[in-house]
């Protein structure tokens, strides 16, 4: 077999990175919620789906404004964050005293409810919006085209990661959140309002899922079922990277993106199986994930 052209390999790698950054955006919200609240949020994919549908909706409201897409992204992701926050405050928070199974099943109930809710409002057909005018084109990289929008996503992913890292390490809120991940009872006795903290964390997590959905809307069909599709990939990412580990999530997303991207070149029909095999190997050797920490409880 002849060696492929290096510029082709680079483009293929960038292709994988685009998807990886979407996955990172969504999975890091999932991982954040799990890290602090110890809730495995099945509804995270539903928030992502709502983000996409709401972007479609807001685009039609703002269509006359020049920056209509960005307004739609802002409004859609914030709406999803609010929906998430309200659900946490009114419902989920009442289940913390119960066994984890109850929280798990409640988020699964949300998947069922929100999925049908979207079908009732937006129907079952595929919806679509265009890329924003400013990012419609493509740039040339070693003679190959690469879409500007994908470059924007590839840069945005690490940007958000960096922002979060700064917040976590350099602000009081960040320190509280990190402390909460270690010992929430202790934090309560120190006078921190833990239930408020949980709401904030859940809202941020939901916002990230909503943002992921909003940003995917211009390059994908908005269809029922996108919620379940993404939640599985997001689970795989956090399982590989380590549940609750921020950098692990980034690593997991990048690995998954690249395995898919190059997997289809080697064995086109089995790239999905690669992913599951990778997951199995990680689970067997390090059940807590590549960068996660084993937890006693």
């Amino acid at each position: 077999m002849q060696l492929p052209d290096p510029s082709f390999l680079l483009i293929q790698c960038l292709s994988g990175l685009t998807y990886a950054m979407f996955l990172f955006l969504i999975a890091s919200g999932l991982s954040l919620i799990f890290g602090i609240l110890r809730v495995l949020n099945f509804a995270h994919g539903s928030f992502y789906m709502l983000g996409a549908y709401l972007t479609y909706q807001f685009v039609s409201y703002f269509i006359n404004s020049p920056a209509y897409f960005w307004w739609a992204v802002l409004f859609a992701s914030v709406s999803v964050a609010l929906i998430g926050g309200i659900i946490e405050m009114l419902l989920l928070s009442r289940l913390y005293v119960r066994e984890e199974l109850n929280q798990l099943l409640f988020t699964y109930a949300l998947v069922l409810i929100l999925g049908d809710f979207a079908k009732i409002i937006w129907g079952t057909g595929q919806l679509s919006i265009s890329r924003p005018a400013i990012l419609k084109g493509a740039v040339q990289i070693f003679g190959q085209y690469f879409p500007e929008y994908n470059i924007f996503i590839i840069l945005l992913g690490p940007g958000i990661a960096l922002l979060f890292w700064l917040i976590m390490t350099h602000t009081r809120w960040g320190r509280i959140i990190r402390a909460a991940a270690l010992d929430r009872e202790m934090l309560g006795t120190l006078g921190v309002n833990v239930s408020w903290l949980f709401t904030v964390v859940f809202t941020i997590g939901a916002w990230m899922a909503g943002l992921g959905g909003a940003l995917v809307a211009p390059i994908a069909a908005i269809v029922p079922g996108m919620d379940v599709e993404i939640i599985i990939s997001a689970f795989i990412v956090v399982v590989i990277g380590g549940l609750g580990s921020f950098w692990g999530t980034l690593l997991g997303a990048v690995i998954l993106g690249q395995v898919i991207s190059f997997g289809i070149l080697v064995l086109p029909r089995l790239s999905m199986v690669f992913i599951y095999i990778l997951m199995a190997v990680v689970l067997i050797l390090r059940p807590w994930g590549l960068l996660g920490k084993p937890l006693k409880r």
Partner: protein
Amino acid sequence: MPRENWFLVIIILCLALLPMSESRFYIFLGTDILIMGLFAVSLNLLLGYTGLVSFGQAAYFGIGAYTCALLMKKASVAFPIAFAAAAVFGAVAALIIGFFCIRLTKIYFAMLTLAFSQIVWAIVFKWNSLTGGDNGLIGIPFPQHLDSPTRFYYFTLFVVVLSLFLLRKLVNSPLGRMLTTIRENPERTEFIGINVKKFQLIAFMISGFFSAIPGALFGIFNHSIFPDLLFWSHSAEVLIMTILGGMYSFFGPMVGAAVILYLRMLVTSYTQYWPLIMGTILTLLLFFFPGGILGFLRSQLTFLKRNR
């Protein structure tokens, strides 16, 4: 004989008389409920009795279904042998997967069972030449003598009653009491010198065994099987049945299966939004009836007795 046993005998008699109704539909629904009910009770051996939340139980159901169907369809193995092999395969798969899962606790355990079941699903989904891939296996031959719905119903009833009898013996045995002790406090059980992991693994294996049996039955009943049977949403569905009926009573999951399947049949005649309704039921259940239907009835009963 205790009152509860008399009650059971009456229920089994009623179930045995069901085909007298001559309604194809009730035989169909009855078979479905018995199969899913046994699946839910098997799951509950882990969930309610051992305190292990398995979110991937559909894998063992699916392994049972595919083992039995493949042996009969592709290797022309006689039904009794294929059926027994299905249960054994379920147990072996559970032993292997359980070996890795029991090293973790709580939510990590749930995640791992989910991940492994998705791996099994992916294999079934992609192994076209063996499993038919996403087209599934269609046209599973009817076993001899079981080719009418009524006969198959009686066979299912027999298998389910026998399995439930064995499972009930098990949970009331010293082993069963050990599992409950582990559920209540795994650390303390460990301190008094008991190998908790070993008992958890045994429970996991038995649960896999009894989850594969309804799987094998389902393949014959449905005549076709598809990879969806192993998908995580199927695991979630059986979990909901278990919780709805009540995970702290032996027959709770059976009741939950009956209620869900009956409701689904009613609701889907009127609307396609069954998931919405199921989600709502689940939410109400979690907030208002955490003990499930049987748990609720039992607490009402004790309340009445106390006030008498």
